[in-house]
């Protein structure tokens, strides 16, 4: 690991100005950053320590159920918060299923959203892949069992964040504080496809810091669920995950549906075709099956990851049934 200095900024604006300079990285929980530093995938001269700033580590809840989450809130805080669990259980569960107790106590929400992908070609310091300014994505012809089945190309990473699909499903808005002030961005627009620029995963411009995550209350009566499948049960990155939010009208028909998948694409992957099937239907297992089928239409697997398609389909079906309060006989 290269030597670096650690700077404590006086305030958020000062932090943004410092981070706009080259060779500086933001330090929050430090979990992904230390991994990148140890692998020498990042080699900043200075870290700007966001933990020196006060007030960014709180979860505020409004009486209507909306949440304002500080970027330095830890995954453990999010998982353990009664306010989050009350109206946004899929977010609480996504946080509780991430990493390990030891990492959930360090890792922050901001860092979870901005972490770099886990692709083993990207994480290998000896390989200069497309994401590092090289000419090719080694996953295309290489070992790609954990790579994208949707939205891939020219890079085939998957978004590694557990929280991202839940925050997309709940329509969260990010406040990004940059050197020239703050802007708001829908979280669905925060994550960017490799088509736009394979070297980056999000819309942050130099110096910008995730300053707040606003999560509106879901529609009245909505129920939501998060579910993931992973190879190692103790802890692992998911092979596929799914979030479902459903609200029924008085007649028992679905009048609001959100389906978002994780770990299948370079960004959290919303499935409008599945939502369309659910909309207006009375939920039963056949409807959930049809929606899950639709969610994976258009999947384009690589040589070694077609197995992820039925897993993702099962995650969607189970998330829908769990949100709808129907026992899943296949689970």
């Amino acid at each position, binding site marked *: 690991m*290269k*030597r670096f200095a650690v700077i404590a900024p*006086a305030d958020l604006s000062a932090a943004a100005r*410092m981070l706009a300079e080259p060779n500086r990285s933001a330090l929050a929980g*430090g*979990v992904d950053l*230390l991994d990148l530093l140890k692998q020498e995938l990042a080699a900043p001269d200075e870290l700007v320590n966001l933990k*020196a700033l006060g007030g960014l580590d709180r979860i505020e809840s409004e009486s209507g159920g909306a949440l304002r989450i500080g970027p330095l809130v830890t995954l453990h805080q999010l998982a353990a918060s009664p306010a989050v669990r009350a109206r946004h259980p899929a977010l609480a569960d996504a946080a509780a299923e991430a990493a390990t*107790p030891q990492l959930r106590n*360090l890792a922050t929400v901001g860092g979870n959203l901005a972490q770099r992908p886990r692709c083993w070609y990207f994480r290998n310091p000896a390989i200069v892949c497309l994401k590092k300014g090289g000419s090719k994505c080694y996953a295309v012809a290489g070992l790609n069992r954990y790579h994208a089945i949707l939205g891939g190309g020219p890079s085939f990473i998957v978004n590694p964040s557990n929280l991202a699909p839940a925050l997309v499903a709940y329509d969260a808005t990010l406040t990004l504080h940059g050197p020239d002030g703050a802007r708001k961005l829908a979280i669905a627009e925060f994550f960017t496809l490799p088509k736009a620029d394979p070297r980056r995963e999000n819309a942050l411009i130099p110096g910008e810091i995730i300053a707040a995550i606003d999560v509106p209350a879901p529609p009245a009566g909505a129920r939501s669920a998060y579910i993931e499948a992973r190879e190692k049960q103790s802890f692992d990155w998911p092979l596929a995950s799914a979030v479902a939010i459903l609200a029924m009208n008085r007649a028992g028909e679905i009048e609001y549906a959100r389906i978002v998948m994780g770990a299948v694409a370079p960004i959290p992957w919303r499935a409008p075709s599945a939502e369309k099937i659910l909309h207006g239907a009375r939920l039963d297992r056949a409807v959930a099956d049809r929606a899950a089928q639709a969610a994976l239409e258009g999947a384009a697997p690589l040589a070694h990851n077609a197995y992820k398609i039925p897993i993702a389909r099962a995650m969607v079906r189970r998330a829908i049934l769990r949100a709808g309060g129907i026992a899943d006989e296949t689970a």
Partner: protein
Amino acid sequence: MSRRPRDRDIIEKIAVPADSAADGGGSTLSRRSFLKGAGAAAAAASLLGVSPAEADVSAPNPPLAGSAERLGPGPAAFNLRINGAARTVAAEPRVTLLGVLRDHLGLTGTKLVCDRGACGACTVHLDGAPVASCMMLAVDARGHEITTIEGLGAPDRMNALQNAFVSNDALQCGFCTPGITMALSAALGANPNPSPEEIKRAIAGNICRCGTYPHVIEAALAAAKAARGRA
């Protein structure tokens, strides 16, 4: 994932003579006491990437505009609270909490294994919560109460959980044991009446390659039961 030489490998290359026994054996000079004696200064300096002459603490750097403080990149003096005592260390800001505990303060009960937060061997408490000390910079631990395995008990005065590990045969090689003990003691503090499932979740971040998990779970249940009996 590629692997670079670890601190431990570097120390062994520098300090252990080719003919010395692996860990002392019949000799009065163990690897650890050898390192803690003559070799320690040179080894510590080499870990920092500086020569012994450079290892003095530099004067504080002039602060940048808009910054309240700037530490490093050279060694900087800062204070930590560890096992209830104030400790002053001089370390580069890039040194992890694990590095300061083991290499600067000699608290070698906390283990370095994967160095990526994946195995749990380096688990310590930060304000009572378990954290991976390999994935946290030491300067970031300022202002927090740190507890290591040495703060839990000692061989001649083990705490209830440590005693339960012995009586339930909950370890084989023992290398993961300090980390698992720290993870469990935090979990039992937060939940005095855990189910086996909750214990499994509490140690989900700890890897034991001897496979002692069933006995570890028994030990945790026994310690929890004993603590409830006393309460």
